[in-house]
Protein backbone atom coordinates (compact mmCIF):
# COMPACT_ATOMS: atom_id res chain seq x y z
CA UNK A 1 0.00 0.00 0.00
CA UNK A 2 1.23 3.51 -0.67
CA UNK A 3 0.20 7.08 0.09
CA UNK A 4 -3.14 7.88 -1.51
CA UNK A 5 -3.28 11.54 -2.38
CA UNK A 6 -7.03 11.34 -3.01
CA UNK A 7 -7.70 9.89 0.40
CA UNK A 8 -5.56 12.62 1.93
CA UNK A 9 -7.62 15.32 0.16
CA UNK A 10 -10.78 13.54 1.20
CA UNK A 11 -9.56 13.51 4.80
CA UNK A 12 -8.76 17.22 4.61
CA UNK A 13 -12.25 18.03 3.32
CA UNK A 14 -14.26 15.81 5.66
CA UNK A 15 -16.78 18.10 7.44
CA UNK A 16 -15.85 16.58 10.83
CA UNK A 17 -12.19 17.40 10.15
CA UNK A 18 -12.93 20.99 9.14
CA UNK A 19 -15.09 21.39 12.23
CA UNK A 20 -12.32 19.80 14.31
CA UNK A 21 -9.82 22.34 13.00
CA UNK A 22 -12.32 25.11 13.72
CA UNK A 23 -12.75 23.85 17.29
CA UNK A 24 -8.97 23.67 17.78
CA UNK A 25 -8.54 27.21 16.45
CA UNK A 26 -11.39 28.75 18.47
CA UNK A 27 -10.32 26.91 21.63
CA UNK A 28 -6.71 28.09 21.18
CA UNK A 29 -7.66 31.74 20.65
CA UNK A 30 -10.14 31.67 23.54
CA UNK A 31 -7.67 30.03 25.92
CA UNK A 32 -4.92 32.41 24.83
CA UNK A 33 -7.03 35.55 25.38
CA UNK A 34 -8.52 34.42 28.72
CA UNK A 35 -5.13 33.28 29.97
CA UNK A 36 -3.57 36.60 28.98
CA UNK A 37 -5.98 38.55 31.16
CA UNK A 38 -5.62 35.98 33.94
CA UNK A 39 -1.82 36.10 33.72
CA UNK A 40 -1.60 39.87 34.34
CA UNK A 41 -2.73 39.84 38.00
CA UNK A 42 -0.78 36.62 38.48
CA UNK A 43 2.38 38.25 37.09
CA UNK A 44 1.89 41.27 39.36
CA UNK A 45 1.44 38.94 42.33
CA UNK A 46 4.60 37.07 41.38
CA UNK A 47 6.43 40.41 41.30
CA UNK A 48 4.83 41.61 44.54
CA UNK A 49 6.96 41.94 47.64
CA UNK A 50 3.93 41.15 49.83
CA UNK A 51 4.19 37.52 50.89
CA UNK A 52 0.39 37.15 51.01
CA UNK A 53 0.41 37.68 47.24
CA UNK A 54 3.77 36.37 46.22
CA UNK A 55 3.52 32.97 47.90
CA UNK A 56 0.05 31.98 46.60
CA UNK A 57 1.09 33.03 43.10
CA UNK A 58 4.29 30.99 43.33
CA UNK A 59 2.35 27.95 44.55
CA UNK A 60 -0.12 28.31 41.68
CA UNK A 61 2.65 28.43 39.08
CA UNK A 62 4.45 25.53 40.75
CA UNK A 63 1.35 23.29 40.72
CA UNK A 64 0.13 24.06 37.21
CA UNK A 65 3.53 23.88 35.57
CA UNK A 66 4.19 20.52 37.19
CA UNK A 67 0.81 18.94 36.44
CA UNK A 68 0.51 17.21 33.03
CA UNK A 69 -2.18 18.89 30.92
CA UNK A 70 -3.91 15.56 30.39
CA UNK A 71 -4.27 15.17 34.16
CA UNK A 72 -5.80 18.65 34.52
CA UNK A 73 -8.23 17.86 31.69
CA UNK A 74 -9.35 14.66 33.42
CA UNK A 75 -9.48 16.40 36.80
CA UNK A 76 -11.79 19.10 35.46
CA UNK A 77 -13.95 16.87 33.24
CA UNK A 78 -14.32 13.82 35.50
CA UNK A 79 -13.42 15.29 38.87
CA UNK A 80 -15.52 18.41 39.11
CA UNK A 81 -18.91 16.63 38.62
CA UNK A 82 -17.93 14.38 41.55
CA UNK A 83 -17.43 17.46 43.71
CA UNK A 84 -20.32 19.44 42.22
CA UNK A 85 -23.02 16.93 41.15
CA UNK A 86 -25.10 19.77 39.68
CA UNK A 87 -22.61 19.87 36.79
CA UNK A 88 -23.85 16.46 35.60
CA UNK A 89 -27.29 17.86 34.91
CA UNK A 90 -26.13 21.22 33.57
CA UNK A 91 -26.09 21.54 29.80
CA UNK A 92 -23.34 24.15 29.68
CA UNK A 93 -20.61 21.91 31.12
CA UNK A 94 -19.49 20.48 27.75
CA UNK A 95 -16.09 19.03 26.82
CA UNK A 96 -15.35 22.37 25.14
CA UNK A 97 -15.99 24.28 28.38
CA UNK A 98 -14.02 21.77 30.43
CA UNK A 99 -11.13 21.96 27.95
CA UNK A 100 -11.21 25.77 28.06
CA UNK A 101 -11.07 25.80 31.88
CA UNK A 102 -8.28 23.20 32.02
CA UNK A 103 -6.10 24.84 29.40
CA UNK A 104 -6.62 28.33 30.87
CA UNK A 105 -5.53 27.05 34.30
CA UNK A 106 -2.32 25.65 32.82
CA UNK A 107 -1.59 28.46 30.39
CA UNK A 108 -1.93 31.17 33.06
CA UNK A 109 0.96 29.55 34.92
CA UNK A 110 3.27 29.76 31.90
CA UNK A 111 2.11 33.17 30.72
CA UNK A 112 2.41 34.69 34.19
CA UNK A 113 6.11 33.81 34.14
CA UNK A 114 6.51 35.37 30.68
CA UNK A 115 4.69 38.55 31.73
CA UNK A 116 6.53 38.76 35.04
CA UNK A 117 9.91 38.77 33.35
CA UNK A 118 8.68 41.17 30.63
CA UNK A 119 7.32 43.60 33.22
CA UNK A 120 10.55 43.38 35.21
CA UNK A 121 12.51 44.22 32.06
CA UNK A 122 10.80 47.63 31.76
CA UNK A 123 12.99 50.15 33.58
CA UNK A 124 11.53 51.43 36.89
CA UNK A 125 12.19 54.96 35.60
CA UNK A 126 9.31 54.50 33.17
CA UNK A 127 6.76 54.03 35.94
CA UNK A 128 8.26 56.96 37.83
CA UNK A 129 8.08 59.25 34.81
CA UNK A 130 4.46 58.21 34.19
CA UNK A 131 3.58 58.83 37.82
CA UNK A 132 5.38 62.15 37.87
CA UNK A 133 3.19 63.21 34.93
CA UNK A 134 0.11 62.51 37.04
CA UNK A 135 -0.97 59.38 35.18
CA UNK A 136 -2.52 57.23 37.89
CA UNK A 137 -1.25 53.73 38.57
CA UNK A 138 -3.76 52.12 36.22
CA UNK A 139 -3.16 54.49 33.31
CA UNK A 140 0.60 54.32 33.81
CA UNK A 141 0.38 50.53 33.58
CA UNK A 142 -1.88 50.50 30.54
CA UNK A 143 -0.28 53.32 28.54
CA UNK A 144 3.38 53.16 29.49
CA UNK A 145 4.37 49.85 31.10
CA UNK A 146 2.22 47.34 29.20
CA UNK A 147 3.07 48.46 25.66
CA UNK A 148 6.77 48.08 26.46
CA UNK A 149 6.33 44.77 28.28
CA UNK A 150 4.26 43.34 25.43
CA UNK A 151 6.98 44.15 22.96
CA UNK A 152 9.45 42.17 25.08
CA UNK A 153 6.92 39.38 25.59
CA UNK A 154 5.91 38.98 21.94
CA UNK A 155 8.31 36.19 20.87
CA UNK A 156 7.71 33.95 23.94
CA UNK A 157 3.98 34.68 23.67
CA UNK A 158 3.90 33.36 20.11
CA UNK A 159 5.66 30.23 21.36
CA UNK A 160 3.04 29.94 24.05
CA UNK A 161 0.27 30.29 21.47
CA UNK A 162 1.69 27.40 19.46
CA UNK A 163 1.97 25.36 22.65
CA UNK A 164 -1.69 25.98 23.45
CA UNK A 165 -2.68 24.92 19.94
CA UNK A 166 -0.75 21.70 20.34
CA UNK A 167 -2.13 20.80 23.75
CA UNK A 168 -5.70 21.23 22.47
CA UNK A 169 -5.05 17.87 20.80
CA UNK A 170 -5.03 16.27 24.27
CA UNK A 171 -8.67 17.24 24.75
CA UNK A 172 -9.63 14.13 22.78
CA UNK A 173 -9.38 12.29 26.14
CA UNK A 174 -12.47 14.18 27.29
CA UNK A 175 -14.10 13.49 23.89
CA UNK A 176 -13.79 16.99 22.49
CA UNK A 177 -14.19 16.63 18.71
CA UNK A 178 -11.04 18.50 17.76
CA UNK A 179 -8.57 17.45 15.04
CA UNK A 180 -6.91 14.49 16.79
CA UNK A 181 -10.20 13.03 18.01
CA UNK A 182 -11.54 13.04 14.43
CA UNK A 183 -8.30 11.55 13.12
CA UNK A 184 -8.24 8.73 15.69
CA UNK A 185 -11.83 7.75 14.95
CA UNK A 186 -11.32 7.83 11.19
CA UNK A 187 -8.21 5.68 11.45
CA UNK A 188 -10.08 3.16 13.59
CA UNK A 189 -12.57 2.85 10.73
CA UNK A 190 -10.17 2.89 7.75
CA UNK A 191 -6.67 1.92 8.98
CA UNK A 192 -5.27 4.65 6.68
CA UNK A 193 -2.80 6.08 9.17
CA UNK A 194 -0.56 8.17 6.96
CA UNK A 195 -3.24 10.07 5.02
CA UNK A 196 -5.13 11.08 8.19
CA UNK A 197 -1.99 11.95 10.15
CA UNK A 198 -0.78 14.06 7.23
CA UNK A 199 -4.13 15.83 7.05
CA UNK A 200 -3.87 16.63 10.77
CA UNK A 201 -0.30 17.88 10.33
CA UNK A 202 -1.35 20.14 7.47
CA UNK A 203 -4.16 21.67 9.56
CA UNK A 204 -1.77 22.42 12.44
CA UNK A 205 0.70 23.92 9.95
CA UNK A 206 -2.01 26.14 8.48
CA UNK A 207 -3.11 27.47 11.88
CA UNK A 208 0.45 28.11 13.08
CA UNK A 209 1.35 29.83 9.80
CA UNK A 210 -1.67 32.11 10.08
CA UNK A 211 -0.40 33.32 13.42
CA UNK A 212 3.20 33.66 12.28
CA UNK A 213 1.94 36.05 9.59
CA UNK A 214 0.04 37.94 12.29
CA UNK A 215 3.16 38.06 14.48
CA UNK A 216 5.13 39.43 11.53
CA UNK A 217 2.64 42.27 11.10
CA UNK A 218 2.69 43.17 14.81
CA UNK A 219 6.50 42.98 14.97
CA UNK A 220 6.85 45.25 11.92
CA UNK A 221 4.57 47.84 13.50
CA UNK A 222 6.59 47.71 16.71
CA UNK A 223 9.98 47.93 15.03
CA UNK A 224 9.04 51.30 13.54
CA UNK A 225 9.52 52.66 17.05
CA UNK A 226 12.91 50.99 17.40
CA UNK A 227 14.58 52.33 14.27
CA UNK A 228 17.42 54.44 15.49
Amino acid at each position, binding site marked *: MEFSFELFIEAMLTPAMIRGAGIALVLTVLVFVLSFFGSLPMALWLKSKKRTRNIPAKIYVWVFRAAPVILILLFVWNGSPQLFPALLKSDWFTPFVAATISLVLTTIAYMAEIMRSALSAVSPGQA*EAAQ*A*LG*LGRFKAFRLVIMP*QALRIALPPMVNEFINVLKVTSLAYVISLREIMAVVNDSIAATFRFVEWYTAALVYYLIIVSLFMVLQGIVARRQSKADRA
Partner: protein
Amino acid sequence: MLKDVSLDVAPGEKIVICGPSGSGKSTLIRTINRLEPHDAGSIHVDGTELTDNLKTIDQIRSRVGMCFQHFNLFPHLTILANCTLSPVHTLGQSRAEAQEQAMHYLEKVRIADQAHKYPSQLSGGQQQRVAIARALCMKPRMMLFDEPTSALDPEMIGEVLDTIDLLAKDGMTMICVTHEMGFAKHLADRMVFMDGGEIVEISPPSEFFLEGRSARLRRFLGQVMH
Protein backbone atom coordinates in the same frame (compact mmCIF):
# COMPACT_ATOMS: atom_id res chain seq x y z
CA MET B 1 16.69 58.81 55.25
CA LEU B 2 15.97 62.48 55.80
CA LYS B 3 15.89 64.25 59.15
CA ASP B 4 15.22 67.80 60.29
CA VAL B 5 14.44 69.01 56.81
CA SER B 6 12.51 72.24 56.58
CA LEU B 7 12.32 74.28 53.42
CA ASP B 8 9.84 76.87 52.17
CA VAL B 9 9.88 77.72 48.51
CA ALA B 10 8.17 80.92 47.37
CA PRO B 11 6.41 81.16 43.99
CA GLY B 12 8.92 81.99 41.28
CA GLU B 13 11.87 81.09 43.49
CA LYS B 14 14.79 79.03 42.18
CA ILE B 15 16.37 76.67 44.64
CA VAL B 16 19.50 74.68 43.89
CA ILE B 17 20.28 71.70 46.10
CA CYS B 18 23.79 70.33 46.26
CA GLY B 19 25.69 67.97 48.46
CA PRO B 20 27.75 64.79 48.35
CA SER B 21 26.20 61.65 46.89
CA GLY B 22 23.98 59.86 49.36
CA SER B 23 23.18 63.10 51.15
CA GLY B 24 19.45 62.85 50.40
CA LYS B 25 19.16 65.52 47.68
CA SER B 26 17.26 63.30 45.27
CA THR B 27 15.21 61.77 48.05
CA LEU B 28 14.17 65.25 49.17
CA ILE B 29 12.87 66.40 45.80
CA ARG B 30 11.29 63.00 45.14
CA THR B 31 9.18 63.39 48.28
CA ILE B 32 7.64 66.55 46.80
CA ASN B 33 5.72 64.52 44.20
CA ARG B 34 5.70 61.45 46.40
CA LEU B 35 7.94 59.22 44.33
CA GLU B 36 9.30 58.64 47.85
CA PRO B 37 6.74 58.56 50.67
CA HIS B 38 7.47 60.56 53.83
CA ASP B 39 6.64 58.86 57.09
CA ALA B 40 6.87 61.89 59.36
CA GLY B 41 6.41 65.61 59.08
CA SER B 42 4.32 67.34 56.45
CA ILE B 43 4.68 68.50 52.87
CA HIS B 44 2.48 71.18 51.33
CA VAL B 45 2.49 71.78 47.61
CA ASP B 46 0.73 74.83 46.22
CA GLY B 47 -1.54 74.94 49.28
CA THR B 48 -2.41 71.23 49.29
CA GLU B 49 -1.06 68.86 51.91
CA LEU B 50 0.47 65.71 50.47
CA THR B 51 -1.06 62.60 52.07
CA ASP B 52 -1.56 58.91 51.18
CA ASN B 53 -4.73 59.87 49.32
CA LEU B 54 -4.20 58.71 45.72
CA LYS B 55 -6.38 61.50 44.29
CA THR B 56 -4.40 64.18 46.11
CA ILE B 57 -1.15 62.58 44.99
CA ASP B 58 -2.17 62.54 41.33
CA GLN B 59 -3.45 66.09 41.61
CA ILE B 60 -0.16 67.29 43.03
CA ARG B 61 1.83 65.31 40.49
CA SER B 62 0.01 66.95 37.63
CA ARG B 63 0.95 70.36 39.09
CA VAL B 64 4.60 69.49 39.68
CA GLY B 65 6.79 68.79 36.65
CA MET B 66 9.84 66.59 37.01
CA CYS B 67 12.93 65.87 34.95
CA PHE B 68 15.08 62.86 35.70
CA GLN B 69 18.77 62.16 35.37
CA HIS B 70 18.09 59.49 32.74
CA PHE B 71 15.30 61.47 30.96
CA ASN B 72 12.86 58.51 31.16
CA LEU B 73 11.14 59.31 27.88
CA PHE B 74 8.68 56.66 26.77
CA PRO B 75 10.58 54.73 24.08
CA HIS B 76 7.48 53.30 22.39
CA LEU B 77 6.02 56.74 21.66
CA THR B 78 7.13 59.53 19.34
CA ILE B 79 8.46 62.77 20.81
CA LEU B 80 5.08 64.39 20.13
CA ALA B 81 3.15 61.48 21.67
CA ASN B 82 5.42 61.61 24.74
CA CYS B 83 4.30 65.20 25.20
CA THR B 84 0.58 64.65 24.59
CA LEU B 85 0.07 61.42 26.57
CA SER B 86 -0.64 62.87 29.98
CA PRO B 87 -2.48 66.05 28.87
CA VAL B 88 -4.89 63.85 26.86
CA HIS B 89 -5.33 61.17 29.52
CA THR B 90 -5.31 63.20 32.72
CA LEU B 91 -6.25 66.78 31.81
CA GLY B 92 -8.87 65.69 29.28
CA GLN B 93 -7.44 67.79 26.44
CA SER B 94 -8.43 66.85 22.90
CA ARG B 95 -5.69 65.30 20.79
CA ALA B 96 -5.52 68.34 18.50
CA GLU B 97 -5.36 70.75 21.41
CA ALA B 98 -2.65 68.70 23.14
CA GLN B 99 -0.61 68.44 19.96
CA GLU B 100 -0.76 72.16 19.33
CA GLN B 101 0.39 72.83 22.89
CA ALA B 102 3.12 70.17 22.64
CA MET B 103 4.47 71.78 19.45
CA HIS B 104 4.53 75.12 21.24
CA TYR B 105 6.71 73.75 24.03
CA LEU B 106 8.86 71.67 21.67
CA GLU B 107 9.54 74.88 19.78
CA LYS B 108 10.44 76.57 23.04
CA VAL B 109 13.07 73.92 23.78
CA ARG B 110 14.12 74.15 20.10
CA ILE B 111 13.37 70.59 19.10
CA ALA B 112 10.07 70.90 17.20
CA ASP B 113 11.67 69.55 14.01
CA GLN B 114 12.19 66.18 15.73
CA ALA B 115 8.58 65.83 16.88
CA HIS B 116 7.85 62.72 14.84
CA LYS B 117 10.99 60.83 15.75
CA TYR B 118 11.33 58.29 18.55
CA PRO B 119 13.45 58.96 21.66
CA SER B 120 16.15 56.46 20.63
CA GLN B 121 16.83 58.59 17.53
CA LEU B 122 17.77 61.64 19.62
CA SER B 123 20.95 62.60 21.47
CA GLY B 124 20.96 62.73 25.27
CA GLY B 125 20.79 66.51 25.32
CA GLN B 126 17.86 66.49 22.92
CA GLN B 127 16.08 63.83 24.97
CA GLN B 128 16.44 65.86 28.14
CA ARG B 129 15.02 68.93 26.39
CA VAL B 130 12.07 66.82 25.24
CA ALA B 131 11.62 65.65 28.85
CA ILE B 132 11.44 69.30 29.90
CA ALA B 133 8.87 70.06 27.19
CA ARG B 134 6.88 66.97 28.20
CA ALA B 135 6.73 68.21 31.79
CA LEU B 136 5.75 71.73 30.66
CA CYS B 137 2.80 70.35 28.68
CA MET B 138 1.13 69.65 32.02
CA LYS B 139 1.30 73.41 32.78
CA PRO B 140 3.07 72.73 36.10
CA ARG B 141 3.20 75.28 38.90
CA MET B 142 6.74 74.20 39.69
CA MET B 143 9.52 72.08 38.21
CA LEU B 144 11.82 69.59 39.89
CA PHE B 145 15.12 68.73 38.25
CA ASP B 146 16.94 65.66 39.54
CA GLU B 147 20.52 65.97 38.29
CA PRO B 148 19.33 66.82 34.78
CA THR B 149 22.82 66.93 33.26
CA SER B 150 24.61 64.14 35.16
CA ALA B 151 24.03 61.52 32.46
CA LEU B 152 24.99 63.77 29.57
CA ASP B 153 28.14 63.98 27.51
CA PRO B 154 29.94 67.23 28.37
CA GLU B 155 29.17 68.91 25.03
CA MET B 156 25.42 68.52 25.63
CA ILE B 157 25.26 69.97 29.14
CA GLY B 158 25.13 73.56 27.88
CA GLU B 159 22.00 73.15 25.76
CA VAL B 160 20.07 71.62 28.68
CA LEU B 161 21.23 74.27 31.17
CA ASP B 162 20.26 77.00 28.67
CA THR B 163 16.79 75.50 28.46
CA ILE B 164 16.43 75.43 32.25
CA ASP B 165 17.65 79.02 32.34
CA LEU B 166 14.98 79.96 29.79
CA LEU B 167 12.31 78.56 32.11
CA ALA B 168 13.81 80.41 35.04
CA LYS B 169 13.55 83.69 33.12
CA ASP B 170 9.83 82.94 32.54
CA GLY B 171 9.42 82.93 36.32
CA MET B 172 8.97 79.21 36.83
CA THR B 173 9.35 78.04 40.42
CA MET B 174 12.03 75.38 40.46
CA ILE B 175 14.08 73.11 42.63
CA CYS B 176 17.15 71.74 40.94
CA VAL B 177 19.61 69.15 42.17
CA THR B 178 22.87 69.63 40.32
CA HIS B 179 26.62 69.39 40.55
CA GLU B 180 27.08 72.21 38.01
CA MET B 181 28.26 74.82 40.49
CA GLY B 182 28.83 77.58 37.93
CA PHE B 183 25.27 77.20 36.71
CA ALA B 184 23.95 76.96 40.26
CA LYS B 185 25.58 80.25 41.22
CA HIS B 186 23.93 81.94 38.25
CA LEU B 187 20.49 80.30 38.57
CA ALA B 188 19.79 80.06 42.29
CA ASP B 189 17.96 82.53 44.47
CA ARG B 190 18.94 80.32 47.37
CA MET B 191 21.40 77.46 47.64
CA VAL B 192 20.71 74.45 49.82
CA PHE B 193 23.53 72.25 51.03
CA MET B 194 22.63 68.77 52.24
CA ASP B 195 24.78 66.19 53.97
CA GLY B 196 23.82 62.95 55.72
CA GLY B 197 20.10 63.46 55.10
CA GLU B 198 20.05 66.92 56.70
CA ILE B 199 19.90 70.44 55.37
CA VAL B 200 23.14 71.96 56.62
CA GLU B 201 22.97 75.38 54.97
CA ILE B 202 20.47 77.54 53.16
CA SER B 203 21.79 80.82 51.84
CA PRO B 204 21.85 83.03 48.74
CA PRO B 205 24.69 82.18 46.35
CA SER B 206 26.55 85.38 47.19
CA GLU B 207 27.11 84.08 50.74
CA PHE B 208 27.05 80.38 49.96
CA PHE B 209 30.25 80.35 47.96
CA LEU B 210 32.19 82.54 50.39
CA GLU B 211 34.64 81.19 52.89
CA GLY B 212 33.71 80.87 56.54
CA ARG B 213 30.62 78.72 56.27
CA SER B 214 30.32 75.37 58.01
CA ALA B 215 33.25 73.01 57.73
CA ARG B 216 31.18 70.39 55.91
CA LEU B 217 30.15 72.87 53.21
CA ARG B 218 33.72 74.14 52.84
CA ARG B 219 35.01 70.62 52.42
CA PHE B 220 32.32 69.89 49.80
CA LEU B 221 32.96 73.08 47.86
CA GLY B 222 36.66 72.34 47.94
CA GLN B 223 35.95 69.04 46.22
CA VAL B 224 33.59 70.28 43.53
CA MET B 225 35.03 73.71 42.67
CA HIS B 226 38.18 73.53 40.63
